[in-house]
């Protein structure tokens, strides 16, 4: 159980975890927009 301090753990791909959080929320927004278009296209 040798954990680094959370502050020391850099995320992969991005310089900070905030970018990951923004990515997850942006992905959700994108999905909602795509689902909205999907609903409208086929209704």
């Amino acid at each position: 159980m040798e954990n680094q301090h959370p502050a020391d753990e850099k995320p992969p791909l991005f310089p900070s975890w905030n970018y990951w959080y923004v990515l997850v929320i942006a992905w959700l927004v994108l999905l909602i927009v795509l689902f909205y278009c999907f609903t409208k296209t086929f209704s």
Partner: protein
Amino acid sequence: MSILDWVVLVGTLTMIILYGVWKSRGQRNMESYFLDNQSMPWYIVLLSIIGTQASAVTFISAPGQAYTDGMRFVQYYFGLPIAMVVLCITFVPIFHKLKVYTAYEFLERRFDLKTRTLASSLFLIQRGLSTGISICAPSIILSSLLGWNLYWTNMIMGGLLIIYTVAGGTRAVAYTQTFQLVIIFGGMFLAGWMVVHLLPADIGFKEALQVSGKMDKLNVIVTKFDWQDKYNIWSGIIGGFFLALSYFGTDQSQVGRYITAKSVKESRLGLLMNGLVKVPMQFVILLIGALVFVFYLYFRAPIFFNEAQLAKVHRTEQGAALMALEKEYDDLGKIKQAQVKNLAAAIEGGSHERIASAKSELKATDTRSQEVRNSAISLIKKADPTADPNDTNYIFLHFVVNSLPKGLVGLLIAIIFLAAWGSIAAALNSLASTTVIDIYQRIYNKEASPEHYLKVSKLWTLVWGVFCIAVAQFAGSLGSLIEVVNVLGSWFYGVILGIFMVAFYMKKVGGTATFWSAVVSEIVVLVIYWTGTVSFLWLNAIGCLLVILLAYLFQLFLEKPRVANS
């Protein structure tokens, strides 16, 4: 089921058990048994989180939900990605920093022993009972569809996984979940492909989507706000957020998955990836249901998908009336078959007027069919008051058993078992860890050897397994089991989440104020439920907010303000 189906079913289940037993080697103490020495990479954490949340009912019920109500159920998961972000910011670093085995350990560091014991006890009651019901729910459906004995189906559904869960603890649970999910996703993809393949030759995937959409089954987004409507974008984001936060943040069956990661980074990645994949995954499962709806426009659908229940009513004095309704329903089905072909041709032709006209005709017949179906359901209830009038959970498996080729039926039935095993194994593991870490070791036996604690941990996993199977054997008479599980959760989740919210965000509130606020809130929640004042779905929010409010007030009157030391 054919011999080939039995070979596939038994072979798949045996393979999983052997794999689980093989992965069970090397357990030497509680740390390896419950945390796997915190060695899991993020992708195992991710699959374990998904495998724990996706129970058998997920794969049985979701396609049926899309069949009856369209795909809007996916909005229920919109709050989940936001909850994953909050967990990564707040919960994960603290759980890792304190190196806890269970979420409730944190409550003693933040508050005191009595608050920890209260939260862990509420979890044990809720998770123990709901796991028993989770064993029974798919067993009832399978035993009804395939004519199996319910007692033995419960034993296999809840019993065989105990072998590797007792032997291998968290490691066996996580690695078997990974393997199980590969089979589950493969099987579900094949089922989805088969639905389209079995449609008439001129109806492909695109045409099936167009027909499904015209029949309002692709209603993924509903923007209209309505307090009475469970599934719209607003209830999905707000209600789904609180539900996901309490489930992933305070339920040990989930916390126990991501605290096994080898670092905060791996835990966070597992949770964030879950935030990325969960919504699309549910979308695909629901899409299969929307396609099954199109399938049953072209081919005969029974008036009620629980055909064992139908057969029961046929043997009563209501049998003749039911037969007349079935005849009318089948006649309407034939009309719908002609009308759906007309609609598909109109869509192909592209004339808006012709499409509108064909759609209107088909919808009118479908509405009439629904009325006849509702009359049949009323008749079933009249003939057998104990019957569950909801056949949503039977729709997808009815399609599987009656329409899929030999071999694939066995695989899909195996998937139901594997999905059940994944979530039940995680539940047993979490029940044992909470019992041993939060109750046995903390209160009754603080100074035993690592070997003793390992032995006790295995024993409690076995005890909880037996307990859950026993609950399953009695749960069959409780009515709609899906709703019973949700009601049980809503009794306790809100209060437990409230305790954690106070712990994280109200640093000046102490243990005594939190403990008594939780006790009072739990009583109030139960009273509200029994008086039937509000729908049970609101109890999560009420319980959580009550704990926060009362803890603040009690702190003002009972204790001097204190500053949390963690």
